[in-house]
């Protein structure tokens, strides 16, 4: 672990609360994916428990973005930074198992139905909240990195390019790495 402050604590005393917190958060990720609960993950592992730094959290997110696959896998890296292999397993299972169990239960009950009126009201009512939370994720990831004006400029430029063009986001991440190496950030 890079400067992990949690290295000397017994692993179960970290993995238990990590699992419980992420499992609860997995059920709150409605309409915005796991990204919308990232601010609370960061609050928990960085601010409340001091297991990792904000910079490590942002790095975990950025590294996962540079890899193929579902973007929720930053959770695996956060768990790994917090408590090694046990942490990676706990965080991943915590974020996947409760929604998977619910989804299977739902498929067993209704095999071929569009969401009912209540489900639609839940979806519609929570949608603006999800959007606000995704903005919050952008904000905390940004603060966690190097929050100077050049990084802010790079973040805004990336957002602008992705909104205006069809460029694959992974090239943007690569460009960000290059900009960092040559000292633009």
């Amino acid at each position, binding site marked *: 672990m890079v400067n992990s402050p949690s290295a000397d604590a017994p692993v179960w005393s970290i993995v238990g609360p990590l699992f419980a917190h992420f499992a609860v958060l997995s059920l709150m990720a409605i309409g915005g994916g796991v990204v919308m609960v990232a601010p609370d993950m960061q609050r928990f592992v960085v601010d409340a428990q001091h297991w990792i730094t904000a910079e490590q959290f942002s790095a975990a997110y950025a590294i996962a973005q540079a890899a193929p696959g579902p973007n929720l896998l930053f959770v695996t890296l956060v768990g790994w930074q917090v408590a090694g292999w046990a942490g990676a397993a706990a965080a991943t299972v915590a974020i996947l198992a409760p929604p998977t169990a619910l989804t299977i239960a739902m498929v067993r009950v209704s095999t071929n139905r569009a969401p009912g009126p209540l489900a639609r009201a839940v979806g519609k009512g*929570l949608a603006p909240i999800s959007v606000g939370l995704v903005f919050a994720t952008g904000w905390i990831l940004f603060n966690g990195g190097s929050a100077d004006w050049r990084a802010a400029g790079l973040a805004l430029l990336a957002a602008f390019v992705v909104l205006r063009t069809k460029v694959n986001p992974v090239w943007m991440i690569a460009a960000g790495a290059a900009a960092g190496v040559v000292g633009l950030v």
Partner: protein
Amino acid sequence: MALPTKISPLQLFIAFSEMALSGFGGVLPFAYRALVERRRWLSAEEFPKLLALSQVMPGPTICNLSVMFGYRSAGLTGAAAALGGMIAVPIAIVLALGIGYQHFGELPPVRRALAGMSAVAAGLIVATAVKMARTVPRRIFPISLLMLAFVGVGLMRFPLIAVIVLVAPIGVLVAWRERW
């Protein structure tokens, strides 16, 4: 959902691995391409239905979609095969990169590269949020909910559960009564 033939768990695992590994920066477009266009396991009408259901369920949308499709194709084994295909290889890749970060994260060029990547990643998330925000009705109520969630969780750093418990019931209630 009318599935043409029974799909074996192995076929599911391979198909979902392929989707996951093509999906840099979002797997969903590749899921559509693979399930609807290439393999014709789903029709263009069935896919959005499955997606809508995956989105109203809590948790990662693409994994819910994998579980649902896998379960319908080959029961619990199918669900495990599809979800496993979606995450197994990507997890190995992400962890390999994480181990690299553990060893080289302190080197100045790596540190600077990660600072640049982090800034871009934050920008990409903001872009996603902007895209999502375009679907939010321009009314005082939904906009207030959006702001409350951002300020409460992002700026004030209140626990998410507190914000959800206070704000979500109001949103659902008003949406239920079609007030926006």
